[in-house]
Structure formats: structure tokens, C-alpha cells
């Protein structure tokens, strides 16, 4: 008998059956991966298990006995802890306080802060994350460091069941590898549920894989019994064919964008050119200045030096408004924080940037507004019951399509894409790649920042690798490899370009 059995779990949200009689089991000592497209119900299932959502039907059994899990507290009593995609840390407390939160060592009712610090430090070192300073406040940490603290905090509570909801969406590659080896080390008497979109990772760490689609079970498989292609087919329910569209042979020689000596507080002397219809991939480690380069180009960070020329005309993008009217668009890396207005209709999000096209003297032309929304819902195949659905109720992939639609509707010569497929399932990814090719075919130029090397290699016409705010190398996808890109990203190799 499995340690954990979830039987016929059903969860209904208004208008959507997120889980439809889903079964799932987990043994101690196993890493059980949950895979599926966005909206397949992976996160909902683990949230039911963690007591964050109340299920509408179904049972949860632990060691063969019915377990009452209706609130997060119930789940914690059963030693179920989860590491969420979104933060659960207190930003104004130190790392040590967060790790030990609610479990402070005390004497005579007073917290022994020295003990708290020491315990936390020992525990962090034991796990091999010695580089994390436990005295630092959480708001001072990078996203990746925050995610590590989140994991440490969960492990400190000695879980029986550990839920990891897409750590690969936020952790850089080297930390992810460290996490994998830790999970292998600790899994002896723990059952680990792991959600991931990355095939490499799924095949590397899983003992078993449960595939969900549209809130229903598809199958449970062992990684040794299946290959990537078949797993992908199971998730998507169809053959997606080639992930990356083929590269066009004949490229325009027309230079659209020329960046010279671009310098801000975060990036130094960045030079490059962008051709019409080109996809320029920007690779590098977290913190190398890739997002900051986009922000500098889009006028979110003041320039200290350098120039930007668009179609042989010098442009000064001091504010987003100026950048947009100069023909730039910026799909940011975090669609929830900076991309979408979540409590607003899909329709209104789509026309947010190109509002001038649907209005005259501030008055909205309802028909133009609806037509524009319908055009992009059809073109990008956005799955939404109506165009008036609030953006927050869409799945991640569809939300990203709304963000893209917004910038496509306003129209741009140069589109900056920062991690365009982060946290998005393979099917939608392939659609977005196809769209990017269509757009460049129509003459748009794209600068794409990505942490996924296969994406960089598969999509870019040319690759720039950044290291510590500078461009460390310029590479061509046909002639390079993941290893070479990493060597440039880590600063082991440099090649100056003009």
C-alpha cells in the first residue's frame, strides 16, 4: 500500500472543473513527478493536498487511514510541506528567523536569538547552501536565493511529504542541480512530489511520473519505460511535431537597431546590432544584466552613457511611453507582477498599450475594442470562455498569450521578450515559437532573453552571452553548444565584439 493515496479528487472553480476524479499515490523514498500542460490541474492537486484548496469530492488516505486535510494546518499536522512558486517568506525578517519561524529556541519564554542563528546556520551548511548568509533580511535576497531559503525552511520542518511546485521556474541551473542532489539525499524516508515542465529534469530525478491533462489522469509511468516524445504526446494529447520552427535561410541585411556603448548602473558598454527580422538571443546567468539590458532599452533605467539608433535615427527612450512610440515593445519576465492587470478582462488587457487604436478623445469605440480582442484571441488561440473573462482565471500559457497580444496589437518594430516561455507547457511553447517566427517573417525584430539554453539555441539567429553586465561573447547557434554558452556565461571565456 502506498504511503499517500488521493482518490477521486474533484475540485471545481466557477466555470472550470480543475480536477475531475483524479487519483494519485506516493510512496516514501520516491520522487513522484507531476506533469501536464498549464491548466492540467497539477498545482490544484498539490494545493488540495496541502490544504490550501478545499476539495469538492474525494478522499485522502495516509498509511491506509483516512486523513482529514481541509486546511493548511491539517496538512502540516500530517507533515506535509510545500515549496510554492510564490513566496511564503517574511521579507522583513532574517533568513534564520524565516527558517525557524514559529520554532524559535527559547529560554524562560525569551527567544534565544544566538541559538536561532546558530541552528539555522548549521542546517543551511548541512544542506550545502553555505553561501547563504542567514543574518541577511529576506528582501535583500535574489529570487533564486529566496527560493533556496523557502526549500530550506520546508526541510527544517522534517516533512514526510514534500511538495515542490516548479522550482526550476525560478532556480538557475547550478542551484537546480544542487537541489536535485539534496532531494536524492533526503528522500530516504520522505515522499517528494515534484512539478516540472522540463523534460531533462523530469527524466533525471523522477522515480515515477503522473501525467495529467485537463484535470484528469492520463497515466502513471516510469521514466525508464518512456521517451520524451511519447511523454510529450501524452501531456499535449497530440503530436506537436518539431518544437522549434526551421530557420529562414535568406535574412535581411537591413540593420534596424544599433546599440553603442550602452551603460547604466547595471550594464557596462554594451554594443550590438539587430537586423530586420532577426531573433537575437541573450543568454547568461541570473544577475548577468540581461533583464537590465531590456530595461535600459525600454527606458526603465536611466542611461549613464551610450546611444541607441533605430533605423539610423538616434532615439532616446527615457520613459516607456517614448519607447513605445519609438516602436519598442517589452514582454516582461513576470506576467503577474508587471505584465497583466489580473482583475481586468482579457479584452481590456489586450488593448491596454494600443489604446489609441480603439478610442477617440478618450472615448472607447466598443466595436473596435471587441474586434481587436477577437482578432488576437483567434490568432493566438487564447483559451478563454469569453473575452470578458478576467485575466486572473486564465492558465499561465494563455495569460502569456494575452501579454503577447497586448504588444502585438500596439505594434512594434523591436520586441523585447524576457523569458517568454517561463512556466509554460510544451504545447503552448511550440505555439509561441511559431508565432515568433511569423512575426519576424513580417519584419519584426526580436530580442529574446532566456535562461533555457535549448530555447536560445533553437530560436535565436544569433546569440549574445552576458556576464557581469557586459557582453562576453557573440555566438551562432549552428556553430556553438550549451557548454560553450555556459563557459561564456560563467566568465571562463570572453571574446570582444564591436
Amino acid at each position, binding site marked *: 500500500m502506498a504511503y499517500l493515496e488521493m482518490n477521486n479528487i474533484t475540485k471545481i*472553480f466557477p*466555470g472550470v472543473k480543475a480536477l475531475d476524479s483524479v487519483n494519485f499515490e506516493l510512496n516514501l523514498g520516491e520522487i513522484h513527478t507531476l506533469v501536464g500542460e498549464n491548466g492540467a490541474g497539477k498545482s490544484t492537486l498539490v494545493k488540495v493536498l496541502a490544504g490550501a484548496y478545499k476539495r469538492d469530492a474525494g478522499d485522502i488516505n495516509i498509511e491506509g487511514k483516512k486523513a482529514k486535510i481541509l486546511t493548511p494546518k491539517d496538512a502540516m499536522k500530517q507533515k506535509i510541506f510545500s515549496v510554492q512558486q510564490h513566496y511564503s517568506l517574511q521579507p522583513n525578517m532574517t533568513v534564520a528567523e524565516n527558517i525557524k519561524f514559529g520554532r524559535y529556541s527559547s529560554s524562560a519564554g525569551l527567544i534565544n536569538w544566538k541559538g536561532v542563528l546558530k541552528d539555522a546556520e548549521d542546517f543551511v551548511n548541512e544542506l550545502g547552501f553555505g553561501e547563504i548568509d542567514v543574518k541577511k533580511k529576506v528582501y535583500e535576497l535574489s529570487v533564486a536565493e529566496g527560493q533556496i531559503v523557502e526549500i530550506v525552511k520546508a526541510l527544517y520542518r522534517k516533512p514526510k511529504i514534500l511538495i515542490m511546485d516548479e522550482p526550476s521556474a525560478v532556480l538557475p541551473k547550478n542551484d537546480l542541480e544542487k537541489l536535485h542532489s539534496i532531494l536524492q539525499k533526503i528522500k530516504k524516508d520522505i515522499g517528494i512530489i515534484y512539478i516540472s515542465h522540463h523534460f531533462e529534469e523530469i527524466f533525471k530525478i523522477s522515480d515515477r511520473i503522473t501525467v495529467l491533462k485537463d484535470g484528469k489522469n492520463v497515466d502513471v509511468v516510469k521514466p525508464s519505460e518512456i521517451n520524451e516524445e511519447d511523454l510529450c504526446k501524452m501531456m499535449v494529447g497530440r503530436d506537436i511535431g518539431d518544437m522549434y520552427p526551421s530557420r529562414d535561410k535568406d535574412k535581411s541585411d537591413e540593420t534596424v537597431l544599433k546599440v553603442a556603448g550602452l551603460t547604466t548602473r547595471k550594464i557596462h558598454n554594451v554594443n550590438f546590432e539587430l537586423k530586420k527580422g532577426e531573433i537575437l538571443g541573450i543568454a547568461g546567468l541570473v544577475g548577468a544584466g540581461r533583464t537590465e539590458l531590456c530595461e535600459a532599452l525600454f527606458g*526603465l533605467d536611466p542611461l549613464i552613457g551610450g546611444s541607441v539608433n533605430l533605423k539610423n535615427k538616434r532615439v532616446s527612450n527615457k520613459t516607456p*511611453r517614448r519607447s513605445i512610440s519609438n516602436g519598442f515593445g517589452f514582454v516582461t519576465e513576470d506576467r503577474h507582477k*508587471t505584465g497583466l*492587470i*489580473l482583475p*481586468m478582462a482579457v479584452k481590456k488587457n489586450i488593448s*491596454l498599450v494600443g489604446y489609441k487604436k480603439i478610442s477617440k478623445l478618450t472615448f472607447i469605440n466598443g466595436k473596435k475594442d471587441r474586434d481587436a480582442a477577437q482578432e488576437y484571441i483567434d490568432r493566438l488561440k487564447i*483559451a478563454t470562455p469569453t473575452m470578458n473573462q478576467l485575466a486572473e482565471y486564465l492558465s499561465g500559457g494563455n495569460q502569456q498569450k494575452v501579454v503577447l497580444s497586448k504588444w502585438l496589437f500596439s505594434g512594434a518594430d523591436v520586441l523585447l521578450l524576457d523569458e517568454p516561455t517561463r512556466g509554460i507547457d510544451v504545447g503552448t511553447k511550440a505555439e509561441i515559437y511559431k508565432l515568433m517566427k511569423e512575426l519576424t517573417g513580417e519584419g519584426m525584430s526580436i530580442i529574446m532573453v532566456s535562461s533555457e539554453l535549448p530555447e536560445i539555441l533553437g530560436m535565436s539567429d544569433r546569440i549574445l552571452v552576458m556576464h557581469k553586465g557586459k557582453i562576453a561573447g557573440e555566438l551562432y547557434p549552428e556553430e556553438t553548444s550549451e557548454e560553450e554558452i555556459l563557459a561564456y556565461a560563467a566568465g571562463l571565456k570572453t571574446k570582444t565584439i564591436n
Partner: protein
Amino acid sequence: MTEQENLVINKKNFALDFVSKYDKYLMLVAFVVISAVLSDKFFTTQNLTNLLKQNAALGIVALGELLVILTGGIDLSVGAIASFSGILVASFLKTGMPWPVAAILAIGFATLAGLFNGLMVTVGKITPFIVTLASMTMFQGIGLLISKGRQVFFKNPDFLLIGREYFLGIPLVAWIWVAMSIIVAIFLGKTIMGRFIRGIGGNKEAVRLAGVSTILYESMSYTISGLLGGIAGVMMTSRLTLGTNVLGDGWELTAIASVMVGGGNFNGGIGTVGGTIVGVIILGLIGNIMNLLGVTIYWQQIIRGMIILLAVLSSSRKKLGSAA
């Protein structure tokens, strides 16, 4: 496919959706029915007219409050702005100024007061709660300074007609409320400006990255709140026939409660004109029916507070259940 399945489920939940979408309106109907059953004086022309007269000014203030709450802010100073505008119009009238000029001047100063709030929030980058708490005290102080702390009497029979006149059997002040509501509803629903104001509360950064000046639109919402507070103050002064510093006392809280009862949310981006009107009427009804039944003022306060909590509780539960 997913889409089709979703649509099927949508149809099944249609009745449920209908209830949850129009819950405020159903609640209003329920209150009207209960009131009619409890007191036979409720459905008299005089009582209904009184109800409208008493709540029209507050209803206008609540519209301004809605705009501010939509941006994710709060305006605690609207009551003080209304009092201040009332004192101003009374003082101007006392000098013998023609009433339209006096009213426009008073409303103009109230608008400037709103602009002041807006600039402090946007350019000064101070939390709306603190800004309007401080400016509430300031505006009250200015009102007291002008009136020397006394009531301001004036003689202008034409001006008093605003509060007394009827049109098609309905008080003029109620017509003004209706007109303002329509204007604000059009502003929010049919203009880009209104969409940006709502968007700022939903996600300010996304609006900024869309090349929109958030400073402009956030300031605009406070300024309009000041303007509407000014109109309400002038209307109420006409009804009271004198200028008084206690005219708008507590209005800010009732206005905020009305927006919340009507489905608004302090997180911003959520709330409607229709809901806010319903909120004002429900809160007004409760007071009205309890007065008719002779419930003491102490119990009235307790019951009113409970109903505000219940209304907001029901809408926040709805939100929790749908967190996908």
C-alpha cells in the same frame, strides 16, 4: 477540448453565476421587501422622497470614493471637503454673491483640495491613508478658520431651491445624483481614462509599462473625488439652509462602507457604479427602516456595522472560492 468542456460547465452553473453576479441587487430587493413588510409607512411617497433626499449627497461622495478605491487608494478627507465646500458657499452667499458663482467657486476650491491629495499621493509618494488623514484635519481646520467655528447664515432663496425643488415628483438633489452616477459610469466604462484608473488599482506597474502616466490618472481620481465632495457639500448646504462644519462628519466612512457593500475591494481594480449606488441605498434603507420602527440610535449603529460586515464577508468568500 478544454474550451468546450468549460463552456458546458459554465451553462450548468448559470443559475449560480447569476446569483453571485447580481447578489448586491438581490440583496437590495430583499431589503426593500423586508422594509415594506416591517412598516406600512415605508412605501409612502413622503418616506421614499426623504430617503432620496437624505442620501443623494452621500451617494455623490461615494462615487468619488469609488474612483479612489479603484486605484487601490482611500480618501478619508471627502467628508471634510464637503463641509469645507459648504462653509465656503455659505460664506460667499453671505457677501451677496450670485449663487451660481458662489457654488462654482466653492466646488472649485474643493476640486483643488482633491488635487492636493492626489499630488501628495503621486508626486509626494505618501500612502493615501496618511495623506487623506492629514488633509482631512487640515480641511476641517480651514473650514473652522473661515467660519470662526460658527454656523454661517445667509439669505438667498434661489439657492435654497436646489435642496427643495422637485422635478417629475422626484427631488432635484436625487436627479443630480442620477446625473453624476451616469457621468461616472460612462467615465469608467466607456473611456480610456476610466480604464486606466481601474487598471492602476489592478496592476500599477503594468499600466506604467504600457506607457501611461500613472501620476496623471491617480491624481485625477483624487481630484474628481474632491470635485464630487464639493458638489455634495453645496447641495447639502442648500438643504440645511446654512453652512456648518459638521455637515460632512462621518461621510467618508459611510462612503467607504457603501463602496465595499457594493462589491468594491481595497486591493483596487474592483468595484462598480451600480454596486456603489446599491451600497448607498442599502445603508440608507437600514437607517430609514430602523427609524420608522423606532429602534434606538445605539442599536442602529450596531446593526449597521453588522450588515456592512456581512455584505463584505459574502463578497470576499465569493472571491476566495474562485481563486484559480
